[in-house]
């Protein structure tokens, strides 16, 4: 590339990085400012002193430990249920022939196309008549399995050579044992991919807990953060951004550690 072109390319690259990274930098900077420092125009780029107190204030403005624990319980609970239901179902769809298999798989694929935003109202009514409204079960059970996970894992299980399974059968291994000891370890990369995808999605989720909870007993972190606006007043941007950081930091840490896997987890879904 000629020098001028290379220089222009560099400028454009920097511009793109600014567009996507600057809001995050701005969030961090704001979260460490005094209220006065946020209310100036033109904006002040960096805080004079780092006000860590904002994080304490945000955390103490509501039962944030409760929110945090609820978020962990819900995201991890969903993950455990999903592994427990997805692995056997994917294995059955990948490795067995049985009457009505295609019908049941079609049901799975139809479910894949049904978003929470479509069914929240009737599910809300059902949960309410089962007494599961405003409980953590109401946040976990509807996602106790994943059509996406079944689809993804089925592809992986199909690629395991038949000889491997035949050899295990000759050794008199039970079908369950074959699944647990041979198939699951071989599918580990897919399980990690799916696990990251599921955890991040449900950790971030705002819509479902918003609709299905009514008290702090079962609210999750995203709801708590969104509520900060009512608690702290809509203009306490330093506190609001500090609260935001509490929600974002765990995800950003995971992203830095497992960037490759996370990108694969999300992008894999878009590529055949």
């Amino acid at each position: 590339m000629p020098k001028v072109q290379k220089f222009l390319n560099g400028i454009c690259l920097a511009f793109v990085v600014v567009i996507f990274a600057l809001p995050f930098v701005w969030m961090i900077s704001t979260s460490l400012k005094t209220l006065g420092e946020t209310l100036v125009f033109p904006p002040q780029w960096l805080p004079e002193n780092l006000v860590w107190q904002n994080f304490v204030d945000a955390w103490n403005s509501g039962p944030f430990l409760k929110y945090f624990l609820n978020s962990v319980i819900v995201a991890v609970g969903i993950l455990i249920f999903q592994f427990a239901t997805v692995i056997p179902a994917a294995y059955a769809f990948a490795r067995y022939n049985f009457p009505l298999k295609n019908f049941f798989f079609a049901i799975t694929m139809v479910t894949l196309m049904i978003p929470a935003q479509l069914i929240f109202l009737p599910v809300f009514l059902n949960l309410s008549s089962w007494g599961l409204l405003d409980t953590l079960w109401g946040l976990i059970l509807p996602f106790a399995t994943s059509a996406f996970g079944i689809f993804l894992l089925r592809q992986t299980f199909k690629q395991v050579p038949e000889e491997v399974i035949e050899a295990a059968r000759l050794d008199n291994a039970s079908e369950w044992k074959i699944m647990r000891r041979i198939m699951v370890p071989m599918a580990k990369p897919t399980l990690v991919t799916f696990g990251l995808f599921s955890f991040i999605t449900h950790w971030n989720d705002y819509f479902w807990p918003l609709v299905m909870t009514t008290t702090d007993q079962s609210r999750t972190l995203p709801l708590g953060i969104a509520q900060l606006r009512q608690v702290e007043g809509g203009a306490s941007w330093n506190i609001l951004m500090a609260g935001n950081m509490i929600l974002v930091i765990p995800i950003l840490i995971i992203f830095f550690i497992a960037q490759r896997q996370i990108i694969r987890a999300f992008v894999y879904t878009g590529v055949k």
Partner: protein
Amino acid sequence: MSQDLLSHLPDNQPVAVTTRRSVSRDFLRPYIMIAPALIVFLLFFLFPIGYMIYLSFHEWNFISPEKTYVGLKNFKRLVADPLFLEVIRNSLVYTFLSVFLTITISLALSLWLNKKGWIYSFIQGAVFSPHIISLVSVSMLWMWMMDADYGLLNWFVEKLGFEKVPWLTDPKFALISLVIVSVWKSVGYYTLIFIAGLQSIPKNLYEAASLDKTPKWRVLTKITLPMLSPTLFFLTIIGLINSIQVFETINIMTGGGPVNSTKTLVYYIYENGFVFFKLGNASAAGVILLIILTILTLIYFKVLSKKVHYQ
């Protein structure tokens, strides 16, 4: 998110045949293995869809024990309601604008950023990062950025020599502002999928073109874009499906206002169901969303089965 993955892969791989063990156990085993998943699907996905369709023909306020059958009255009322028509218009404007902008920008970015080297993978990561951040954080962050008096965005706007823009408080701008947030959040995801699509184009096509000394723009229009058309099509449909369901940013950033200018379909369902307790009305609007999503999905599978590009 869940609809990002569609089954269109061949389904006819060899399947293990169990032998030697007790017949009834072998016969039942696959059903036992799929049962937990299917029970969840039935309870939380399929049955609710049926229930919603049932409710859409009834009037019910959640408290009274009676659900009154009213035929198509809920739908007729929706069509006659100027607010609902505005909601549909908002949804369509939002959907088409954000899909068009996201696709165009991410296509351009992917053509540019599809290169080797740590700089490019770093930038791909940076562009992608908003996609894994909670919509709550994204919404709050952008509310702050779009603050009319002290927001960073208006500082840029003034630097460029324009007047401060009331991003979220003026009906003229609010919907556009939400589109900007949606584009910012999802453009990286689309870019990476486009890049994956670009990388799956056979290299020999480009080698042949370079032997022929084909000009660059011809390579783009005659090789790259046609070969990318399945990805383009996939992302367009996914984008339409996702955008038509927008809710979180609206709920946090504008609450449907100012003067209903950002009220969209899912927000309307939410408000009718949980604020006004008009469950029949909300369900009827839900059925309309169901119809839209079904049509988009059917188009997807229909075109997919024909294949978009010809090799």
